């Protein structure tokens, strides 16, 4: 048996809140940039930053999962149903993130081009694996993003419910 802890460790907290900011920022940028006019000065830089930040978040998320697996996380609080639902939601959030990373990558690399990360390094592209990959991956990316934002909102509301209604440790252990 691992020893139990009452809150998340500092690194886990930092990674969690940083990811939250990144996810909201990426969603906002993505939502905005797809409707930009070709002649907008933002048309080129914003998708470039979105892709770069998204790939950085991928690396961070892999690191986060490794960190989570080697450190101890506090127990989920609430009714048996809430515990199950919370665990499922947490797993689903990770899964949706990875669907977003993969689908985003598959849009930009459908023609074999790599993705430049902040003009810092390039992630190679491997072309298309399915026909009309950029379109299909685009739809998956879009709908997954909406689902993730919906689920993340629910996740936030649930934390607030535990904090203000149940008055338990749920929110505090992440602060």
């Amino acid at each position, binding site marked *: 048996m691992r020893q139990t802890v009452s809150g998340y460790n500092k690194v886990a907290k930092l990674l969690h809140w940083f990811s939250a900011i990144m996810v909201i920022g990426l969603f906002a940028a993505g939502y905005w940039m797809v409707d930009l006019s*070709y*002649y*907008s*000065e933002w*048309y*080129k*830089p914003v998708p470039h930053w979105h892709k770069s930040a998204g790939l950085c978040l991928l690396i961070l998320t892999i690191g986060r999962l490794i960190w989570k697996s080697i450190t101890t996380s506090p127990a989920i609080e609430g009714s048996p149903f809430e515990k199950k639902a919370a665990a499922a939601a947490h797993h689903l959030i990770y899964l949706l993130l990875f669907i977003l990373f993969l689908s985003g990558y598959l849009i930009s690399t459908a023609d074999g*081009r790599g993705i430049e990360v902040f003009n810092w390094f390039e992630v190679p592209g491997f072309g298309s694996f399915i026909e009309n990959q950029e379109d299909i991956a685009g739809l998956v990316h879009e709908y997954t993003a909406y689902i993730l934002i919906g689920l993340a909102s629910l996740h936030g509301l649930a934390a607030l419910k535990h904090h203000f209604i149940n008055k338990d440790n749920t929110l505090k252990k992440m602060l």
Partner: protein
Amino acid sequence: MKKILIASVIGATMMIPMTANAADYTIDTRGAHASVNFKVSHLGYSFIQGRFNKFDGEFSYDKNDIEASKVTVNIDTSSLDSNHAERDKHIKGSDFINVSKFTSAQFVSTKVTKKTDGGLAINGDLTLHGVTKPITIDATFIGEGKDPWGGYRAGFEGTTRLQLADFGIKVMGASSYVDMDLQVEGIRK
């Protein structure tokens, strides 16, 4: 003596920016605002249009000093695409451009002159199928200016006819030559 040498070296390096004012451009292959297209006869009845998807290059251009212009383009011959995989395989094979042996083609300009009609004659050496031959590209300057994203671009269009026999490529039937159609847009460095 040493001091004079150092002073003259410094003096010489300081003079370089004074003389070179032709702007250098990178061909925008990343944004695919450039293409290397070819057109070749099919049995003498119609033309096949294809292109090379992978290439890179750079040029320098100054509208006030055309003669100082230069262009270099490297083409990945294996990126030939005529919208038909089996045909591409055939053209890339040893019957034609033999890409496993001659993986790249290169054009290096030697002289650029302004023609009386306002167009440009770009003379240079083309290396294709392992053979280097001088060719002339008839080019037209299309336009230049700022783009909406903070860059500066200049673009050209060019055509040239290559005789396959000149490059040691076997002539079969009516397909003795290939017309190249080049679209080039560069981003100023």
